[in-house]
C-alpha cells in the first residue's frame, strides 16, 4: 500500500482537479502506484460534505462562482469579489492575487478536491482546427506543436470520461470533424425555450466581417452534464451516466436546478471527483490538505527528486507539518496559475524563461435585453446553446474572434437579478404590493443575456510571478499578476457588441446593455466603452512547443528541462481559441497519460536505482 516507504510511489500528482484526477485514474488502472496531493479540503469526497457546500451557497450573500467553497487561509483561492480597479503603481492586494494591472485578471478557480470543475458551467466544446496554428494563419498567437487531428482520439476519451451530452450533427462547423459514426455518450441537452425563439428569430441571419459573410446560427452546446444516454454510443454498447459521488442514483439526469455555477445540488454536472472516485483505491492514494510548496531538484541530474508539501489539519490555523513525497515521475496539475507559482517558487524558470508568461483568459463581454414576450428565463442550465459560427475566419488577422454563449438565467449576471431588480423597484421605483409583484412578472421572464467569449492570444507581458513580500499564512507564495488587453482583443469585444446590436434589432428585443466606467473591467476602444469579465479560463503559463527555447513543455506536457516532470493543464495551451478549455485540457491529460505510462515502463526496465519501484525484477 502506498504510504510506508518514501519511494513507494511511481507517480506523485500535485492537484486533484480534472487533469490530476484523469491522470491518477488512468495511471492507477495501468497498475502504477499514485499519490495525489490536493492543497484544499475534500468536502466533495462524500455527499454530506458536498451538501455542506450546497448549504454554504444557499446562505451566501453574493452568489459568485466560489460562493459554495469556503475560504481556506491555508489554501487560499481567488474570488471575483476581490477584483478592484487598479491604480498604476499601487498593486491591488485585496484578495489572494496581487494584481499589478494595468487591468485586473478577472478569473477565479477552486482549490479543493475536484478543482474548478466543482463550479464550472460544464461547456465541453472542442477547439477549431484553425485554433492550433493561428501564428501561421493569422499572424497572431503561437502555433501548437500538434493539430486538431492529433487530439481526435483524446477528445473522445475526454468526452467519455466527462460524460458529454451533445449531437455530432450540431458540431460539424468551421472544420471540426469526427470519425464516421462517432456519437457523444448522451444526446444533446434539450434547448431552452429562449434558444428556440432565438433560432427562429435569427433564421437566415448573417453578418459581414471584412467583406466576407458569416452565418449566425444558434447551435446546441455540448456539455458535461447528464442527459439521455445515446444507445448508439461506443459501438452500440451505450453509456451509463455517472451520478453523484457517494449517492450514485442521484444526478443521473439534469433536472434544472439552475445553479450549475457555483454548484449543482445533485451532481448531474460533471466534476472531477467522479473520476477520482473511480480510481483503484489500492493503487491511488489521495491526500487532501497537503499544499505543495516546492519542487525539489537533484542539481547534478536535473531530475526532480521530490515534492515538498505542507500538511495542515485546521484550515484556519497556520500550523502544519512539512513533508516530502518521492516518486519516479512528478506531475504538476494544480491549475495554470498555481503550476507557474510552484515552479517559480522552486527556482524553475525553464530554459525558455517562459514559466509564468503568456497568462491568458477569455475576456467575456455581456449584453442584455428584454425579449418582446416572455421566454420563461431563469430555467435550466446556465446555457444550452450558443452561436459558434463566428468563431473562425480570415478576420482573425485583424481582430480577436469570439463565441456567443446564450444565457438562460435572465439578467442574473449582468444586473444581479433578482436582487438588483428587487432593490431597484423597491428603493427607486417605490413599488410595493401587487404593483411590485406584477412588474416583476412582466419583465423578469423576458430577460436574457448574451456572453461573448473573446480569444486572448498569448502575450509575454501577461504573466504570473512571485514576490517574497506576498505570501499566505502557510508561507507559500501568492500569485503576482501583470495583465492587460491588447487592441486585437478589444477589437474583438467591440465586434461582439456590434453583433449583439444586430441580433437585438432582428429580434425586436429592447437593449439594456450599459457599461459602467467605474467598474474594474471597463476599457475603451475606438471611442467607445466596454466592460469585460473573466471566464474562469486560466491558461498559457507553461506553454507547449517544439523545443526548449520556445516553450516550457513538449506536446506531451513533459518539461524540456526535467525529464521526469510533467506540467499539465490549460497552462500548456499555446492558444485558447474561443472554446471553453476544459475539454481540451482533459484530452491533453489523456494524451500525457500515454506518455507517462511509456516513461514509467521504460524506467521499470532500466536500472533499479531511479525506478522507485520496490521488488521489481530487473532486465
Amino acid at each position, binding site marked *: 500500500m502506498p504510504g510506508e516507504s518514501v519511494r513507494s510511489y511511481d507517480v506523485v500528482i500535485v492537484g486533484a482537479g480534472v487533469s490530476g484526477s484523469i491522470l491518477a485514474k488512468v495511471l492507477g488502472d495501468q497498475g502504477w502506484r499514485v499519490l495525489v496531493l490536493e492543497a484544499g479540503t475534500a468536502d466533495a469526497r462524500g455527499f454530506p460534505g458536498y451538501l455542506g457546500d*450546497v448549504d454554504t451557497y*444557499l*446562505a451566501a450573500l453574493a452568489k459568485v462562482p466560489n460562493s459554495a467553497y469556503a475560504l481556506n487561509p491555508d489554501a487560499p483561492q481567488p474570488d471575483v469579489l476581490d477584483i478592484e480597479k487598479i491604480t498604476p503603481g499601487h498593486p491591488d492586494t485585496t484578495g489572494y492575487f496581487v494584481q499589478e494591472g494595468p487591468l485586473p485578471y478577472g478569473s477565479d478557480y477552486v482549490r479543493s478536491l475536484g478543482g474548478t470543475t466543482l463550479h464550472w458551467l460544464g461547456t465541453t466544446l472542442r477547439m477549431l482546427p484553425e485554433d492550433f496554428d493561428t501564428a501561421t494563419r493569422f499572424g497572431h498567437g503561437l502555433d501548437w506543436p500538434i493539430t486538431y487531428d492529433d487530439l481526435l482520439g483524446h477528445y473522445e476519451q475526454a468526452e467519455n470520461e466527462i460524460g458529454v451530452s451533445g449531437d455530432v450533427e450540431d458540431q460539424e462547423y468551421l472544420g471540426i470533424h469526427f470519425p464516421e459514426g462517432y456519437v457523444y455518450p448522451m444526446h444533446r441537452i434539450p434547448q431552452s*425555450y429562449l434558444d428556440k425563439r432565438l433560432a427562429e428569430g435569427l433564421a437566415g441571419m448573417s453578418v459581414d466581417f471584412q467583406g466576407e459573410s458569416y452565418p449566425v446560427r444558434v447551435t446546441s452546446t455540448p456539455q458535461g452534464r447528464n442527459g439521455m444516454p445515446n444507445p448508439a454510443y461506443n459501438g452500440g454498447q451505450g453509456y451509463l451516466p455517472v451520478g453523484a459521488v457517494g449517492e450514485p442514483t442521484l444526478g443521473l439526469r439534469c433536472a434544472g436546478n439552475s445553479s450549475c455555477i457555483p454548484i449543482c445540488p445533485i451532481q448531474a454536472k460533471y466534476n472531477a471527483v467522479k473520476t477520482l472516485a473511480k480510481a483503484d483505491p489500492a493503487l491511488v492514494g489521495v491526500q487532501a490538505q497537503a499544499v505543495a510548496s516546492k519542487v525539489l531538484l537533484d542539481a547534478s541530474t536535473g531530475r526532480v527528486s521530490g515534492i515538498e508539501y505542507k500538511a495542515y489539519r485546521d484550515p484556519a490555523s497556520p500550523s502544519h507539518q512539512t513533508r516530502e513525497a518521492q516518486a519516479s515521475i512528478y506531475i504538476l496539475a494544480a491549475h495554470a496559475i498555481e503550476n507557474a507559482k510552484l515552479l517559480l517558487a522552486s527556482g524553475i524558470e525553464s530554459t525558455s524563461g517562459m514559466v509564468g508568461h503568456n497568462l491568458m483568459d477569455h475576456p467575456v463581454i455581456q449584453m442584455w435585453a428584454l425579449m418582446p414576450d416572455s421566454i*420563461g428565463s*431563469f430555467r435550466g442550465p446556465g446555457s444550452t446553446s450558443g452561436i459558434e459560427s463566428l468563431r473562425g475566419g480570415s478576420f482573425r488577422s485583424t481582430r480577436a474572434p469570439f463565441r456567443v454563449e446564450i444565457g438562460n438565467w435572465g439578467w442574473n449576471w449582468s444586473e444581479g437579478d433578482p436582487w438588483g431588480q428587487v432593490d431597484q423597484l423597491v428603493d427607486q421605483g417605490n413599488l*410595493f404590493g401587487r404593483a*411590485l409583484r406584477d412588474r416583476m412578472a412582466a419583465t423578469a*421572464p423576458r430577460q436574457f443575456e448574451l456572453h461573448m467569449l473573446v480569444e486572448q492570444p498569448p502575450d509575454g507581458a501577461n504573466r504570473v510571478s512571485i514576490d517574497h513580500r506576498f505570501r499566505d499564512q502557510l508561507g507559500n507564495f501568492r500569485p503576482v499578476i501583470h495583465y492587460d488587453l491588447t487592441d486585437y482583443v478589444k477589437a474583438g469585444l467591440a465586434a461582439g457588441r456590434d453583433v449583439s446590436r444586430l441580433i437585438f434589432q432582428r429580434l425586436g428585443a429592447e437593449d439594456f446593455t450599459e457599461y459602467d466606467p467605474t467598474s474594474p473591467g471597463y476599457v475603451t476602444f475606438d471611442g467607445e466603452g466596454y466592460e469585460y469579465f473573466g471566464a474562469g479560463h486560466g491558461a498559457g503559463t507553461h506553454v507547449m512547443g517544439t523545443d526548449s527555447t520556445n516553450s516550457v513543455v513538449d506536446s506531451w506536457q513533459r518539461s524540456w528541462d526535467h525529464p521526469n516532470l510533467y506540467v499539465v493543464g490549460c497552462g500548456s495551451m499555446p492558444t485558447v481559441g474561443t472554446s471553453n478549455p476544459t475539454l481540451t485540457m482533459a484530452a491533453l491529460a489523456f494524451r500525457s497519460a500515454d506518455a507517462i505510462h511509456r516513461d514509467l515502463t521504460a524506467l521499470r526496465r532500466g536500472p533499479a536505482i531511479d525506478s522507485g519501484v520496490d521488488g521489481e525484477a530487473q532486465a
Partner: protein
Amino acid sequence: MTHPAEPDLLERFVDLSVSLTGFSAFELRSTGMAATYLETVLGEVGEETLDEILDHFLRAREAHGTEAELERQLRAELFGVPRLGAVVRNVIKLWYLGQWYALPDDPVDQPSPQRHLYLGRGMQAGRAVALASNQTRVVSGESYLQGLAWRAMLAHPMGGRQQGYSTWGEPPPGPPGG
C-alpha cells in the same frame, strides 16, 4: 405589548406583509418563514418600532376606501415616513429575497434586550459566524429558497425546486390568475 382584544402579533405581521408584498396570507404562510421573519424584524428594530409600524398600518387600512386610497394611505403612513419607510422596504426585501439589508442609520431608539436571540448565525465568506445586528445577510438557506421574488418572476429559486429534465424547453408559464 399585545392587547388581548387584538389578533396576535404574528397575524398582524402577516397582514402587513400581504399589503407590502402583494402575496396572499396563504402564500406567505406557505413559505414557512413568517415567524422567522417576524423574529428577524424584532431583533433588528425592536418591539416599539414594529408596534409603531403596525399601528400606522392599521390606521391606513381603517381609513381607506378604494385600493388606490389604501396605497396612498400606506405611502403617507409608512413608506414616506423616514424611519418607518426604511424598515417596511426592508420587510419587502426580507420576503422577496430572504435577506435582511443593513439599514442606513440604526433605526432603533431602544433595541430589544433580546436582540441577540433573534439574530442567530449566518454565513460570511463561507464560514458560520455570529452576526452583529444591522448587517446585510441571508437569513438562512431556506429563506433564500423561499424568496417570493422567484414566484413573482414565475420561476424557481436558482439552486433548488428543480422543475425536471427538459422543462426549460417548454413554453413559459402564463401570469398567475387573480
